């Protein structure tokens, strides 16, 4: 894996780093000198491409211009046959052990690889999601806080209305008081004039009644007993005459 990184970065680093490609150990220390401050590229999504699970794709790309598609296979076959025939690699018991272990490992990776990778990715995703959530909630609360502050400032601008209302109230109270005073004065004067008029009326009425009573009393006292007797006799004769005419009417 490190070798692949060397092949990839060899082209990129030609002439850019003074230290040379051989010293590249960790992907993030590409900017070795303190002058370059550009942000580091994000981590690649997937690992490097491999063919047949082991051999990196870059080898095939490297050999393609010269030897075409079958080049690396020929190279591989030739190398293996060379090592076997010249007994550079000797077949022994370990070979079989290596083959079986290799087979099991390859089977295990092929079967469980993706799910393990998904699990690990999910762990990372959760962390990032939590951080993202924190960031989002912080941003929304900040914008909300700014909105609220602006609203409060707008509210403060209306403070003059309160004092206008107070002054209005005071003016209205004064005017009410003034009007009440005027009305009171008018009513009092009117009452006094009305009293004079009523007093006059009362006096006239009392004089009238007194006079009437006096005249009546005099008239009654001037009736002598003689006149009384005469008037009573006249009344009786009148009554008798009336009785006669009524009886006559009834009889008829």
């Amino acid at each position, binding site marked *: 894996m490190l070798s692949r990184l060397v092949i990839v970065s060899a082209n990129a680093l030609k002439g850019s780093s003074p230290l040379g490609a051989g010293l590249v150990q960790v992907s*993030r220390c590409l900017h070795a000198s303190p002058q370059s401050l550009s*942000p*580091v590229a*994000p*981590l690649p999504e997937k690992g490097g491409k491999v063919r047949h699970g082991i051999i990196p794709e870059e080898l095939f790309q490297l050999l393609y211009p010269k030897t075409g598609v079958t080049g690396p296979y020929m190279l591989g076959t030739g190398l293996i046959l060379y090592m076997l025939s010249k007994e550079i690699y000797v077949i022994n018991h370990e070979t079989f052990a290596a083959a079986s272990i290799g087979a099991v490992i390859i089977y295990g990776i092929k079967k469980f690889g993706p799910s393990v990778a998904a699990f690990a990715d999910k762990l990372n995703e959760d962390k*990032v999601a939590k*951080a*993202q959530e924190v*960031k989002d909630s*912080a*941003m929304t609360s*900040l*914008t909300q*806080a*700014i909105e609220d*502050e*602006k609203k*409060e*400032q*707008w*509210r*403060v*601008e*209306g*403070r*003059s*209305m*309160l*004092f*206008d*209302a*107070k*002054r*209005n*109230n*005071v*003016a*209205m*109270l*004064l*005017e*009410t*008081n*003034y*009007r*009440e*005073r*005027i*009305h009171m*004065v*008018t*009513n009092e*004067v*009117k009452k*006094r*004039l009305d009293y*004079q*008029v009523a007093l*006059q009326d009362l006096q006239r009425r009392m004089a009238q009644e007194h006079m009437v009573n006096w005249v009546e009393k005099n008239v009654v006292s001037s009736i002598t007993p003689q006149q009384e007797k005469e008037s009573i006799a006249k009344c009786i004769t009148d009554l008798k005459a009336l009785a006669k005419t009524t009886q006559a009417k009834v009889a008829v």
Partner: protein
Amino acid sequence: MAGRRLALKAIDWVAFAERVPPNQKGMFNALKTRSDAISAKLASLPESPVAIDWSYYKSAVAKAGMVDEFEKKFKALKIPEPADMQTSAINAQEAEAEKDAQAYVEASKARIAQYETELDKFKNMIPFDQMTIEDLNNTFPETKLDTVKYPYWPHKPISEL
């Protein structure tokens, strides 16, 4: 005895109500009811008083000169307007409220500036999936692990894991 011109400023109670914060709504309602009561009382009183019919009284009252004397004194009477003692106090209150409001607005603006800087920090942050732990520690200083106080992994007390 002419009535005074009343210099009342028209108050838009609806707009006023909008600007009242919710925790002062009670006070606002009290003010409004008071103002309404006062203006209703004012409206119920006629502006000029009932005119006195002097000619009728002249013919009705027998005492000579009494009505004329009353009329003369009545016309000459000048009713003093009630003294205004509260307006200056209200103006003083207004000036003080103005000062307080300025101070509040200043503080509010400072708070807004602070919020804006924090908001900018969040906006200009690099996305989380491109950050390193170093970048994270620079952006959020509270995530920095104290390797001096806790030299062994996990560099924080177990209870905080």
